[in-house]
């Protein structure tokens, strides 16, 4: 990377920063919808599979196939269903990212130690309570790491949406490729990378915040505050 290249990049960005921001937003939008859809479908589906284990291997195998098909080919196939544009991109990204969320939800719940579910049942929890009070909370770290993988995949692959007439930072990358202008490719790739890293980091932070250690500390602090409040009211 020589000085003239950096100059080119800085010049390009200073002239086109509004467009870069717009495309970043569009990228985020496509990825966000795809990720939201993935979680919305795969989380309940994963829970359902733990209750119907006989069909679980087949459903996971299907998700595995979608993930294995080259993403560009998947986008191409879906033109026949959704035409060209962002809808197609969202659908393709959704199918592509199903596996980690589905698989992690399923195994996360399955791996909850059986003595905990036994203890819960023995104390008189219903099957539904066992699910949402014991199994789901304990599977949260595994589920979130599945979502992290999905989010990085989705943000990375969303760049290909431009190839089938969709928007996002892929536009910059593709136009840079066809014009052989590295600074344009980089103006698209750099924000996309930053987005993926931010999403990954953000989800990891979230996982920490909802984790038991932080939660226990919050409960203790909340109670302390209530106590102090009650004392000051007594003095008045």
């Amino acid at each position, binding site marked *: 990377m020589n000085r003239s290249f950096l100059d080119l990049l800085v010049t390009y960005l200073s002239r086109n920063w509004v467009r870069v921001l717009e495309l970043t937003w569009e990228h985020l939008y496509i990825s966000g919808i795809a990720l939201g859809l993935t979680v919305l479908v795969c989380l309940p589906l994963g829970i359902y599979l733990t209750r119907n284990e006989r069909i679980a291997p087949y459903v996971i195998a299907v998700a595995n196939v979608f993930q294995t098909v080259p993403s560009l080919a998947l986008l191409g196939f879906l033109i026949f269903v959704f035409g060209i544009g962002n809808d197609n991109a969202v659908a393709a990204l959704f199918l592509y990212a199903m596996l980690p969320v589905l698989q992690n939800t399923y195994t996360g719940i399955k791996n909850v130690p059986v003595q905990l579910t036994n203890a819960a049942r*023995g104390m008189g929890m219903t099957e539904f309570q066992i699910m949402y009070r014991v199994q789901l909370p304990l599977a949260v770290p595994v589920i979130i790491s599945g979502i992290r993988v999905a989010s990085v995949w989705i943000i990375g692959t969303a760049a290909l949406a431009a190839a089938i007439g969709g928007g996002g930072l892929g536009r910059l990358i593709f136009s840079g490729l066809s014009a052989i202008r590295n600074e344009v490719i980089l103006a698209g790739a750099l924000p996309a990378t930053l987005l993926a890293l931010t999403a990954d980091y953000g989800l990891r932070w979230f996982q920490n915040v909802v984790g038991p250690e932080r939660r226990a500390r919050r409960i203790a602090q909340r109670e302390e505050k209530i106590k102090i409040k009650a004392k000051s009211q007594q003095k008045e």
Partner: protein
Amino acid sequence: MVEFQNVSKIYEDGTKAVDNLSLQIDRGEFVVLIGPSGCGKTTSLKMINHLEPATSGSVIVNGAAVDVVDPVKLRRNIGYVIQEIGLMPHLTVGENIATVPHLLGWARKRTKARVEELLNLAGLDPKVYRHRLPAQLSGGQQQRIGVLRALAADPDVILMDEPFGALDPITKGKLQSELLDLQHQVKKTIVFVTHDIDEALKLADRVVLMRRGKIEQMGTPEELQTAPVNDFVRSFIGEDRLSQISPEGPVDTLIEDAPLVVAPSLNPTIVLEQLEELSRETAQIVDRRGRWRGMVYLADLLEAERGKRSSIEGLGRNDRKLILPAATVRDAAELLVDLDAPVPVIGENGTLRGVITNSGIARLTISRLTRGGAPS
């Protein structure tokens, strides 16, 4: 309170886990189910809260058959403690204890007060422990919380499935004593499963010894130890107990029958003759009501004979003795070191239970040496 009526459990592969079991457990009773693995003790326990349905017969809790009532309601009224402890790692200690009250929809304030009450009962400061996570506690503390969790909603019946099985011996002994204290205070009906005979004898009001799904013998710890009905019971109690004897253990196994027991009204000369016949130097005096009145020594008898006393009344010495159940093997050994004469063992109501002698201790030592092999 809990009743098994001809209950059998046969698994799909044909194994008979429980075979025509009938057992009545009264309110406030501490019953220990014990036996080798696969004897059906845990299966029987799990039939009480209907985690294991019976194949035939019926289990009745609080007057209702468990297969008729709603299992969820049934279980919320029965405390349950398991060997793996099973505290929820994502919840605080306070929340773990409050599990069943929460399920029952108790008000927040009532639940909180109950949690603090229980933690205090177990000697754990609520301020320190309520907001801790289970992972931040020792194994012993975790199982204390497990027991408190079972007590939380004040159930009538508590089921304990080898609750102390995974703890080290010192912690285990401590928790056993705490459980006994607790039981004296709360008077619950407790059904406790273990494979450790010492634990069973220490805790139980009644021991139910099982094998192959059937009851081999049922009775108080004393009954099982003094009157085992067959070789299986004898070996199950004997072998395990001998290997576990420690200086701080109870003296029960060392007690032998007193060679000479005499009435206080007897003439010293007669007692002297009897002692001579048995070539002994001491006799135990027991009155008509069965109470121990002291131990009389050969020298005192000779002096009484010379003094022409008409009876041995008042000759018994009662300063050297062991009182059950507090006496330990170490106490016995210390008394025997000072003076080589039998040490009388006195039961709780003042009756003579027998004596302990040096040769008894020697026999115990030999059996331990041959059992344990070379010292490690």
